[in-house]
C-alpha cells in the first residue's frame, strides 16, 4: 500500500488518464468462490485511481469492521453493492465497475462464481470483448473454472486471460504456474478457445498487475493492464465483417424526411452504397448518413446513425439493412443454443416472444435435442430445461427474420426469450443455423380450401374451446351444445379430454411438460378439423393461458371462441363427480389442477358461463346465440 503515499506519481498517472481520445474495452472477471475476483477488481480500481479518498475511508472502516483480510483493505467489500448480499457475504448479481488508464476506459462486469447463478455470468459475458478467468494457484483448474470457461466460449468471447492468482501463496513457483497453464490449455482447446494468455499474479500484493513483478523473474509479461490495454475490441473486429444495420426506429418528422435509425452491428456503411432490406430482399441506395453534427461519408460498427435512401422502399423497425451483395440469412426455423434463465422450466411446445435485434416474433420451442452438462460437456437427453441449464433445440417462428450465425455475428445471432404472461426475460439464445425443413416441406397448395368446404356445409368452421376446472361442467355443456348443433344439421366434432387421453395422447402424463404437449396435439387436431369445415368443440381443463393462446393462434381471426366454464374450486370439489378431488386431497393423485397444479383463468374469454347461476341447458342456449351473433351459424 506504500504506493498511495507517492502523491506526485499518482497525480501524474491520473492526469494522463483523462485524455478524451481513448478506446473502450468491456471485460468480465470470472472464477470460483474465493479465487479473488473482487480483490482483483478492487486492485485495478485502486491502481488506476478510480477510488476516491472518501470511498477509501469508508472501505478502510468497513474492512476493519466486517472485512475478511484482518484489517487490511478488503477490496471485495467495494463490490458487494446490495445490502442483502453484504449480509450473506456473497455477490449474487452482476456489478459493473469502471476504471481508465491512459489508453482505454474499462467496463468490468463482476460476475458471481456461485453455482446457481449461471444466468448472471451469461449476462455479464454477453457484452464482453474479453474475459479474465481467475485460478487460485494453490487449487489449480477446478470444475467451476471449466464451467466458466465453457460459458465464455459459448457466449463467443474471443480473448481470454487466465490470471493465476495468489502466486505469493505458492512462493511464486514457475513450476506450479506451468502446471496450471498446461492443464488449462488442454481444456481450452477442447472448447475452442483459441486466444488464451496466462498471467501469474497476486491481486492482494499487486504482482504483474501494472508492472512486471520482481517476484516472478521467469515471467516476461505482459502485465494484466498491458493485456487489457491492447487486446482487440469486438467493434473494431466487426468492422471487417459484412454490413448489418438493424433498423430500430423510422424517423419521420415531416413528409420530406424519412430516416432509418439504428446502431451498426457490423461493417462499414458509405454514402452511395447499394443496400438490401432483409428479410424482404428489396434494394435501394444510401442517400445520406444523417447526424446532428452534419452528414457523414461513412459510419462504422458501433455507431448509432440515421440513414435515408435514394429510392423509397418499405422499411420498418426490425428489418436489417445489409450490402446488396452480402445479405444475412433469412428463415423461420432455427437451431439454437439456449441458456435458460427463468424460474419456471423451458417446456418444448410452449411459445415465447423472441427478440432478435429490433424484431420481436413468436417462437415455439421444438423438442430439445439435448442439454449440456457444463462440467463435463456431455450431451444429455432432456424433456425440459431448468433454470441455469443450457440446451440445444429448434425454434419455429411465426415470421421470417434476418439473422447470422452467432459465431459469425453476435449482434445478429443473439436473441432473448420473453415469457408472454409475466413479461420476464426467461431465455438467452444463440442461433446456429436455419433448419432447412421449412424450405423442404413446402405447403401443398390445395384447390379445395377451407372456404369451399364451409360453402358446402352452410356454416363457418370454428373452435369452441371449453376450459375450466375438473368437474366444472365443461363436458356436460359441450355435449348439449353439440346435440343442438347436430339437430340443426350442422357439422360438428367434440374432442373430449378424457377420450383423447385414451388414444392420441395415451403416452402423456400430467406433468407441466406433458400438459403442454397434450394441448399442443389437441390444438393441432382442432386446426385440421376447422380446415375441414367443422365446428369443433374442445373440452379440456387446459389450465395454462399460454397453451390456450397458442391454440387460438393456430386458427384464423374470429374462428376461436374461448368458453370459460367458471365454477369455483369449492363448488367443483363439492360435486366431485369422478371422485378425483378426494384422491388428490388424499395425495393419491399428483399434479391435480386446482389442488397442487395451477389453473390460470382466462382474462378475456369470448363466453363466460358462471355455473353457480346458469344451468347447462341455459348455457347451451347462450353459446348458440353467440354463434348466431357472430355469423358462424344462421342466427335464430
Amino acid at each position, binding site marked *: 500500500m506504500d504506493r498511495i503515499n507517492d502523491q506526485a506519481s499518482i497525480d501524474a498517472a*491520473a*492526469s494522463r*488518464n*483523462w485524455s*478524451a*481520445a*481513448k*478506446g*473502450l474495452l468491456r471485460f468480465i472477471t470470472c472464477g470460483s468462490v474465493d479465487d479473488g475476483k473482487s480483490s482483483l477488481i478492487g486492485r485495478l480500481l485502486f491502481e488506476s485511481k478510480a477510488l*476516491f*479518498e*472518501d470511498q477509501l475511508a*469508508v472501505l478502510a472502516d468497513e474492512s476493519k469492521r466486517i472485512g475478511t483480510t484482518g484489517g487490511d483493505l478488503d477490496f471485495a467489500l467495494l*463490490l458487494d*453493492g*446490495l*445490502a442483502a448480499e453484504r449480509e450473506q457475504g456473497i455477490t449474487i*448479481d*452482476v456489478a*459493473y*465497475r*469502471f476504471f*481508465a488508464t491512459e489508453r*482505454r*476506459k474499462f*467496463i468490468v462486469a463482476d460476475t458471481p462464481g456461485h453455482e446457481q447463478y449461471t444466468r448472471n455470468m*451469461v*449476462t455479464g459475458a454477453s*457484452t464482453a470483448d474479453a474475459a479474465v478467468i481467475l485460478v487460485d494457484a494453490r487449487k489449480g483448474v477446478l470444475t467451476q473454472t471449466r464451467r466458466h470457461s465453457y460459458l465464455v466460449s459459448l457466449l463467443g468471447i474471443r480473448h481470454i486471460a487466465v490470471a493465476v492468482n495468489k502466486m505469493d501463496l505458492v512462493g511464486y513457483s514457475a513450476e506450479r504456474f506451468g502446471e496450471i497453464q498446461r492443464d488449462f490449455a488442454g481444456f481450452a482447446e477442447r472448447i475452442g478457445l483459441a486466444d488464451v494468455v496466462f498471467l501469474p499474479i497476486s491481486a492482494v500484493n499487486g504482482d504483474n498487475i501494472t508492472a512486471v513483478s520482481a517476484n516472478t523473474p521467469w515471467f516476461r509479461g505482459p502485465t494484466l493492464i498491458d493485456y487489457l490495454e491492447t487486446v482487440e475490441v469486438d*467493434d*473494431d473486429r466487426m468492422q*471487417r465483417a459484412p454490413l448489418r444495420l438493424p433498423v*430500430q426506429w423510422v*424517423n419521420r*418528422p415531416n413528409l420530406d*424526411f424519412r430516416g432509418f*435509425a*439504428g*446502431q451498426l452491428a457490423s461493417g462499414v456503411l458509405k454514402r452511395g452504397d447499394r443496400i438490401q432490406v432483409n428479410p424482404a430482399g428489396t434494394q435501394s441506395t444510401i442517400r445520406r448518413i*444523417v*447526424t*446532428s453534427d452534419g452528414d457523414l461519408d461513412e459510419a*462504422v460498427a*458501433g*455507431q*448509432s446513425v440515421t440513414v435515408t435512401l435514394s429510392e423509397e422502399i418499405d422499411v420498418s*423497425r426490425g428489418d436489417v439493412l445489409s450490402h446488396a451483395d452480402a445479405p444475412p440469412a433469412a428463415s423461420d426455423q432455427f437451431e439454437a443454443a439456449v441458456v435458460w434463465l427463468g424460474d419456471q422450466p423451458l417446456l418444448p411446445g410452449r411459445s415465447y416472444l423472441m*427478440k*432478435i*435485434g429490433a424484431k420481436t416474433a413468436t417462437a415455439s420451442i421444438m423438442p430439445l435435442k439435448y442439454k449440456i452438462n457444463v462440467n463435463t460437456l456431455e450431451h444429455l437427453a432432456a424433456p425440459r430445461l431448468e433454470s441455469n441449464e443450457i440446451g440445444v433445440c429448434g425454434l419455429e417462428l411465426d415470421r421470417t427474420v434476418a439473422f447470422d450465425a452467432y459465431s459469425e455475428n*453476435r*449482434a445478429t445471432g*443473439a*436473441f*432473448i426469450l*420473453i415469457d408472454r404472461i409475466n*413479461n*420476464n*426475460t426467461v431465455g*438467452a439464445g444463440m442461433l446456429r443455423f436455419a433448419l432447412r425443413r421449412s424450405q423442404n416441406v413446402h405447403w401443398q397448395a390445395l384447390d379445395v380450401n377451407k372456404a369451399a368446404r364451409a360453402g358446402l356445409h352452410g356454416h363457418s368452421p370454428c373452435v369452441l374451446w371449453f376450459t375450466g376446472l375438473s368437474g366444472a361442467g365443461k363436458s356436460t355443456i359441450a355435449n348439449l351444445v353439440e346435440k343442438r348443433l347436430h339437430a340443426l344439421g350442422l357439422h360438428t366434432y367434440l374432442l373430449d379430454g378424457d377420450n383423447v387421453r385414451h388414444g392420441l395422447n395415451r403416452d402423456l402424463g400430467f406433468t407441466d411438460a406433458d400438459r403442454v404437449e397434450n394441448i399442443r396435439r389437441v390444438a393441432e387436431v382442432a386446426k385440421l378439423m376447422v380446415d375441414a369445415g367443422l365446428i369443433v368443440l374442445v373440452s379440456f381443463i387446459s389450465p395454462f393461458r399460454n397453451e390456450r393462446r397458442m391454440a387460438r393462434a393456430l386458427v384464423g381471426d374470429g374462428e376461436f371462441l374461448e368458453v370459460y366454464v367458471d365454477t369455483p374450486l369449492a363448488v367443483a370439489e363439492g360435486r366431485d363427480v369422478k371422485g378425483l378431488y378426494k384422491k388428490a386431497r388424499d395425495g393419491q393423485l399428483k399434479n391435480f389442477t386446482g389442488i397442487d397444479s395451477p389453473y390460470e383463468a382466462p382474462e378475456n374469454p369470448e363466453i363466460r358461463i358462471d355455473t353457480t347461476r346458469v344451468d347447462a341447458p341455459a348455457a347451451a342456449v347462450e353459446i348458440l346465440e353467440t354463434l348466431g351473433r357472430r355469423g358462424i351459424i344462421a342466427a335464430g
Partner: protein
Amino acid sequence: MISLTHLQRLEAESIHIMREVVAETEKPVMLYSIGKDSAVMLHLARKAFHPAPPPFPLLHVDTTWKFREMYAMRERTAREAGMELLVYRNPEALALGINPFTHGAAVHTDMWKTQGLKNALDEYGFDAAFGGARRDEEKSRAKERVFSFRTSRHHWDPKNQRPELWNLYNARKHQGESVRVFPLSNWTELDIWQYIHIEKVPIVSLYLAAERPVVERNGVLIMVDDERMPLAPGERPAMRRVRFRTLGCYPLTGAVESTADTLPAVIREMVLSRTSERQGRVIDHDASASMEKKKQEGYF
C-alpha cells in the same frame, strides 16, 4: 479502420437505448433535473432523434429549493430543444410548506422528490421515465439494470431484476407498471465532463468556480442563494471562491473551494480530486445502504 473513442461508443450506446424506449413504450418522459447529467442526457436525446425533436416531454420534479440559476437554465433549455417542459411541484409538500430547514433533509427529499416523482408519473400516466443516474455514483447503482422496472406502486425489487443480455432490452410490462431507464448507466463522472467539454453542452455556471456567498455548517459549505436561508445568530455569509460538483436543492448541496473557472480546469481538478462527487450531497450521508432503501421506496 476507424477506432471509435470511448465517448463515441458511450454516446452510441445511449442513443440506442433511447430509441428502444421510444419504439417499445407508450408514453415516455425524460426527467430533467437541470444538472450536468441531465444536460448530457438531453443532448444525447436530441442527437438520437435528429432532425426531429425528441418525441417526449421533459419533466422537472421541482422542490422550489433549487438554485435560482437552475430555474433560468431550465426554461432556456426546453425552449431551445423545442420540447414540452412539465414542472411538477408536489401539492402536498407545497401545502405543508416542506423545507429542509424545518423538516430536515430526509423529509424534504421524501416529500418533494420521492413522493413528487411518483405523483407526477401517475398523474401524467407516463410508463417510461429516462433518468440520468450512473452506475459509478454509488454501490447499489452498480448493479441496477439499464431498464429498471417498478411495480404499480413504484417499488424497486433489487432481487428480482430482469437479466439484461447483449443490447437486447426487454421493455414489456403489465398495465400500471412502469420502467425507469438509465441511458447514462455506463458513463463515469469524468466521461460526463469530457463530453460536456468536447460537445459544448450548455451547463449552469454553478459548476465553475466564482466568488459566492457561503456559510459553513458541519464542515459543509452552503451557498446562500436567496433570502429564505435562515442564518444562526452571528452567522454571516462570507464570499468564497467555490464551485459545485453536483447540484440539488441549494440548502442541501455542499460547495467545494476551487479556482477552476473553465471546463479544462474543472476536469483537471476532478482527475486530481480525492473525494467522490456524492460527498457534496447531504442526503447521502447516512449508512451506505440508504440509497438502496430510497430506491426501493421509489426515489430515482
